């Protein structure tokens, strides 16, 4: 192939729609059509998944097809769906009306920062829906149409919704900066819900959701496999510590039901976090049980529609009721806590058949969970440490130089910010914070949440994760950080890929893994390796 001349390249640069989204810039945003090509969209849901969930319009289709095979009268379906939701969710109506376009949110989204695409500015993302709302639901819009910022619902608009509601991880960072507290995540949720009404959804979300519905977890694993996997972890723990822990499954009458994302049971590096839980519960002699039915903390219903979210959440509580436990302890998950903190109570709560959680070890009553009856493992662990109930040797993590990534949902949707930090203070010799504008409530998303953690959009994920990776790179270069800790299973998976690309020498772990390493178990053998079978400091060959 002939090497192109510089001059040609320049022309190429100006003419080619080669930004991720294919948008050719320098036109009014409303006039720039979206362009789908392999790599910039998540694969559509398989018809079998759509049928299983009883969602409408199952068919073979692809976003890069011209014809999306939408159902007859789809515009009406969407507009009616929007009307129904405007009536049902007051927040949506308010978010549609009160934005003053001040732009404070514009540059706060990791998708904008990583792609440079203006439609990834939260204000414009919301405008995609708001323009239709204006057109059909406000007097000014009805009279003035485009002049009042209104747009009729067309296939082009629908395609735009699909593109940009799946370039938002519903992380809520933008809402932190909005003077009116407008939560663009909720607007994205609505756009995704509306798209499902006409059969536009992605497989990466619908398959785990239907698996959860069927077998209780994202992977579709059956009870015996779930149990077997935990037993393998028990074997590993014995090899490393000399202690045999004895978890129970589906045990009626246990005091506590423990629920964590299934990725902690099946996949690296989550399994090391699970080993941490197992050690901790053994260490304090907790009367608890796993469930092979409520075997998933995550809830992909949240990324689908509110009915499915409600149903999957209800399964956890049904299992707690069946087993007759007093309260639920939840593992390191992200969006599970958003569902719990923001929606559970009005959806399925209050869980009156359970007791207000009280730590059997310290006697601490978790009043913050008085209605949902579910406590976060970090709250629980921090309380144990504070009451000096754990024997810890932080030097067992001396081979780790850790930093902490606040996962969006625990940090912004439930305010769990200091507990994991307090745990880190006690289980590692020293750890390092990333820069102030990238942590706590201003934390940057991993870039792949809300069901965007799929391989076909890997390049996009590497860009949306850039703001996070950039901060990790900074602490790696400045302090020699080699471990990125977090309290979210999706993070553990997606940050592993993100760091593998941007900062290859940084690994990812759950905070409970570091707890497990540090725990001094009664009767243990001399520890030579950590939970990954990696040699401890001073124990290298």
């Amino acid at each position, binding site marked *: 192939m002939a090497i192109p001349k510089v001059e040609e390249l320049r022309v190429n640069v100006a003419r080619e729609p080669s930004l991720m989204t294919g948008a050719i*810039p320098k036109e009014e945003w409303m006039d720039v059509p979206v362009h789908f090509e392999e790599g910039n969209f998540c694969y559509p849901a398989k018809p079998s998944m759509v049928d299983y969930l009883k969602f409408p319009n199952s068919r073979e289709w692809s976003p890069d097809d011209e014809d999306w095979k939408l159902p007859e009268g789809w515009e009406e379906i969407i507009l009616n769906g929007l009307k129904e939701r405007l009536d049902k969710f007051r927040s949506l109506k308010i978010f549609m009306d009160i934005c003053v376009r001040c732009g404070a949110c514009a*540059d706060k989204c990791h998708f904008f920062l990583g792609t440079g*695409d203006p439609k990834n500015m939260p204000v414009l993302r919301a405008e995609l829906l708001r323009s239709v709302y204006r057109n059909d639901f406000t007097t000014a819009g009805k009279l003035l149409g485009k002049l009042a910022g209104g747009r009729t619902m067309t296939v082009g608009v629908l395609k735009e919704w699909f593109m940009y509601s799946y370039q938002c991880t519903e992380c809520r960072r933008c809402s932190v900066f909005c003077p009116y507290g407008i939560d663009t995540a909720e607007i994205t949720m609505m756009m995704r819900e509306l798209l499902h009404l006409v059969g536009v959804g992605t497989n990466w979300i619908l398959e785990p959701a239907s698996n959860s519905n069927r077998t209780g977890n994202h992977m579709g694993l059956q009870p015996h496999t779930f149990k077997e996997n935990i037993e393998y972890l028990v074997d590993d723990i014995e090899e490393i510590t000399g202690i045999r822990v004895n978890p129970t499954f589906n045990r009626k009458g246990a005091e506590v039901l423990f629920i964590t994302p299934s990725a902690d049971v099946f996949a690296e590096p989550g399994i090391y976090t699970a080993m941490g839980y197992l050690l901790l519960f053994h260490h304090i002699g907790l009367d608890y049980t796993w469930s092979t039915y409520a075997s998933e903390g995550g809830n992909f219903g949240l990324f689908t529609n509110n009915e499915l979210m409600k149903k999957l959440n209800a399964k956890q509580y049904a299992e707690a009721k069946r087993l007759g436990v007093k309260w639920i302890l939840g593992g390191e998950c992200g969006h599970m806590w958003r569902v719990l903190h923001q929606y559970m109570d009005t959806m399925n709560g209050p869980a009156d058949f359970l007791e207000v959680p009280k730590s059997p070890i310290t006697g601490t009553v978790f009043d913050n969970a008085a209605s949902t009856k579910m406590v976060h493992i970090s709250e629980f662990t921090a309380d144990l440490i504070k009451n000096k109930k754990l024997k810890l040797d932080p030097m067992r993590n001396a081979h780790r130089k850790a930093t902490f990534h606040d996962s969006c949902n625990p940090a912004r949707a439930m305010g769990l910010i200091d507990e994991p930090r307090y745990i880190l203070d006690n289980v590692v010799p020293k750890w390092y914070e990333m820069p102030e504008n990238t942590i706590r409530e201003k934390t940057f998303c991993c870039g792949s949440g809300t069901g965007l953690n799929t391989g076909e959009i890997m390049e996009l994920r590497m860009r949306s994760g850039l703001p996070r990776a950039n901060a990790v790179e900074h602490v790696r270069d400045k302090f020699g950080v080699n471990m990125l800790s977090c309290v979210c299973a999706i993070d553990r*998976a997606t940050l592993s890929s993100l760091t593998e690309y941007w900062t290859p020498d940084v690994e990812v772990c759950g905070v409970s893994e570091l707890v497990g390493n540090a725990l001094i178990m009664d009767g243990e053998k001399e520890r030579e390796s950590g939970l990954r079978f990696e040699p401890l400091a001073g124990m290298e060959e």
Partner: protein
Amino acid sequence: MQLDKLLVENREIILKQWKDCLLTKFAPETILFFQKQKDQFANPMGHKISVGLAELFDVICDTSSREVETPSLGQLIKLRAVQQVSASDAVSFVIQLKKIVRKECLSNIKTRESYEEWLAFDVRVDTAVLAVFDMFMASREQIYKVRVNELSSGRLNGAVCPSAMMKKEQEQQAQAAADIPALK
């Protein structure tokens, strides 16, 4: 005046124009933001472009340096490698440097007198393009590896627990070993 001196003198203006040519593809509001926001954590892409270009520029100007790859340039190329642009497009910015430098420096220098200097400069830019192209391809390969590793780790589809797989393998091997005498 000699070219190397002019390059040092005009470093800032050259770098600015060079950055601009990497930004042309973005929408006006994006360009404005990338140029304005100086906090590297609030503007990681703008930052990566600036420091990556600066390192590459210094390498090209420093006639004693052999190695083109530097850490920040590496990160800039990684960025290019995930922007879904063609390979030629991704590395073409290096060639643009020739044009910018000619524009900024040519009026102050007699081409004929400094003919050899210009030639040498061009050769260094050409070398850099090739090196950057290699870096780009390495980053692309890395992306494929990340994809494969993600699948095989079971992180996302969770098909198998690595521990379980190891145990099964060991069991199968033990079984196979036990089976051998039985066959005899």
